[in-house]
């Protein structure tokens, strides 16, 4: 039995039925990971500790209810703080950072019994759509090593696609879970903003960042999402709401769906392949006898410029904490305190991060605040209102995840072309809405993805429609 190719649900069942042990699972994964080192997926690993934990898990008498992921290996995006384990966020700035505490997501998954195998490579500070901005070099797409795995959670997506684990954690500020999931042919979910605690998740753009899950399929994503969700007093934006049973709801027959479609909008992009895949997705919904309704999202195209004001503005404030003094990279041979700041930040940040800090600084600077930041927040309201209106008539909205398949590493040099990668994923972040990416279709032998966007806190319904869609006809 190839243990590494099993789904999370199959691993949970197999461990419970003692078909194999957690130690065997971990050993299997270590062997795969060592074989595929060239993919550049891990920034760091701790195999010894993982094996120790697996031994403990195998001897555990705890119930399935207490530790739903007992003995299950997994991978964390290197944006989540792990106590005493290097947390680099893909940056030279944090190459020497060993956090004194763990993120709530990390603690929750430990409490659920899972075992972290390693930390996944990512775009620097989650700023990128191809993994090429990482200080550690780009991750290669396991399906074709010339291609990008997407970003910023490219390492997390590649880890699942390359069978380094059955699921991984990721974060999504403008599409960073869904786009790499689509490029690597796997499933991903970004839950409602506030569903998953941001404590210990290194900040990029605080009103947009949200942690989530990448997995082989939607059912597995639901199981893992259940374990990381819930109110956390350490995050003031965490939502005080009951966490439903996502894995049960995912397969329930109780949900009624009306899927919102934007066929004209998709055709307006003038891309035949994009329209064709969207059309085939609609056909699948029809075959599944799921109701659909054409809706309008008139401001969708404004998402891109709005996002590239708000995200850099928030990033310029968040990343001001890197001063070279309390943690992170500290420049040598400095003349005075001011010089220490300038050189530490100049040498510690990569080019894309610098660019975004400078754009954010520009948009927030005296004389431009109203024209850019304030205006972007107003248009953010328009975009969010489009979804509020849509959800009066539909239960979810279907969009492509990306406009195309994974592109060649190094092939996009124009920053705006790269930013356009996120045109379909950004709106969900601006509205704080939960959204999934489900593998569907292919182009040039690479996978494509279809995205479902749900209403605030309606992950159950969202997972249900996404699962139905992924499974297709019975």
């Amino acid at each position, binding site marked *: 039995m190839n243990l590494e190719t099993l789904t999370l649900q199959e691993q949970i069942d197999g461990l419970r039925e003692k078909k194999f042990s957690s130690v065997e699972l971990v050993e299997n994964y270590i062997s795969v990971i060592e074989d595929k080192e060239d993919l550049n997926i891990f920034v760091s690993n701790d195999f010894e500790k993982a094996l120790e934990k697996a031994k403990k898990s195998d001897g555990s008498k705890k119930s399935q209810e207490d530790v739903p992921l007992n003995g299950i290996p997994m991978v964390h995006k290197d944006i989540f703080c792990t106590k005493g384990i290097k947390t680099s966020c893909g940056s030279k700035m944090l190459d020497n950072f060993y956090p*004194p505490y763990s993120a709530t997501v990390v603690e929750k998954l430990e409490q659920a019994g899972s075992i972290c195998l390693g930390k996944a490579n990512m775009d620097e500070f989650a700023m990128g759509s191809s993994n090429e901005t990482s200080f550690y070099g780009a991750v290669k797409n396991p399906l074709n090593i010339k291609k990008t795995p997407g970003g910023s959670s490219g390492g997390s997506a590649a880890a699942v696609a390359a069978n380094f684990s059955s699921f991984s954690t990721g974060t999504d500020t403008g599409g960073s879970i869904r786009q790499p999931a689509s490029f690597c042919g796997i499933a991903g979910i970004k839950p409602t903003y506030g569903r998953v605690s941001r404590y210990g998740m290194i900040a990029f753009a605080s009103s947009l960042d949200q942690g989530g899950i990448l997995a082989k399929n939607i059912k597995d994503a639901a199981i893992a999402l259940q374990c990381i969700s819930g109110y956390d007093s350490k995050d003031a934006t965490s939502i005080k709401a009951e966490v439903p049973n996502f894995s049960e709801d995912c397969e329930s027959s109780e949900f009624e769906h009306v899927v919102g479609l934007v066929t004209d909008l998709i055709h307006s992009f003038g891309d035949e392949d994009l329209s064709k895949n969207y059309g085939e997705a609609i056909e699948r919904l029809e075959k599944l006898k799921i109701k659909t309704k054409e809706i309008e999202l008139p401001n969708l195209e404004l998402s891109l410029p709005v996002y590239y004001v708000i995200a850099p503005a928030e990033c310029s404030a968040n990343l001001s904490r890197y001063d070279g003094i309390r943690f992170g990279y500290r420049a040598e041979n400095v003349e005075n305190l001011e010089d220490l700041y300038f050189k530490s930040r100049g040498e510690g940040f990569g080019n894309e991060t610098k660019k975004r800090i400078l754009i954010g600084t520009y948009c927030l600077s005296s004389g431009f605040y109203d024209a850019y930041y304030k205006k972007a927040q107003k248009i953010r309201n328009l975009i969010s209102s489009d979804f509020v209106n849509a959800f009066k008539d539909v239960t979810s909205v279907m969009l492509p995840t990306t406009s195309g398949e994974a592109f060649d590493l190094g092939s996009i040099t124009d920053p705006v072309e790269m930013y356009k990668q996120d045109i379909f994923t950004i709106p969900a972040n601006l509205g704080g809405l939960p959204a999934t990416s489900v593998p569907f279709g292919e182009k040039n032998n690479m996978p494509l993805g279809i995205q479902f966007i749900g209403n605030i806190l309606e992950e159950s319904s969202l997972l249900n429609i996404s699962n139905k869609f992924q499974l297709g006809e019975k």
Partner: protein
Amino acid sequence: MTINDKTLENLSKLSKIKIDDNLRDKLKEDLNLTMNMIDKINKIDCDQIEELSHPIKDNFNLREDVVSEDINRESLQKTSNKTEDGFYLVPKVIE
């Protein structure tokens, strides 16, 4: 061009990021491409629309202002490579 040498110098000062000379031209080009894309928002009339700064309205759950856990100074300061007697060391600021 929105961002010229003078603007870039000012942004560098405001954000306290040293910009290498060999990077300046490429950086200016990229920043201007991005600002051109962003400038689309100037054509939108939304004077009457309220700003949305946070996606989930009225959801700020502040906890009680009491110490819930301690992170001791020693473990916290391990993340810095220059400390002494519980203080962070910086270049001299007062002559």
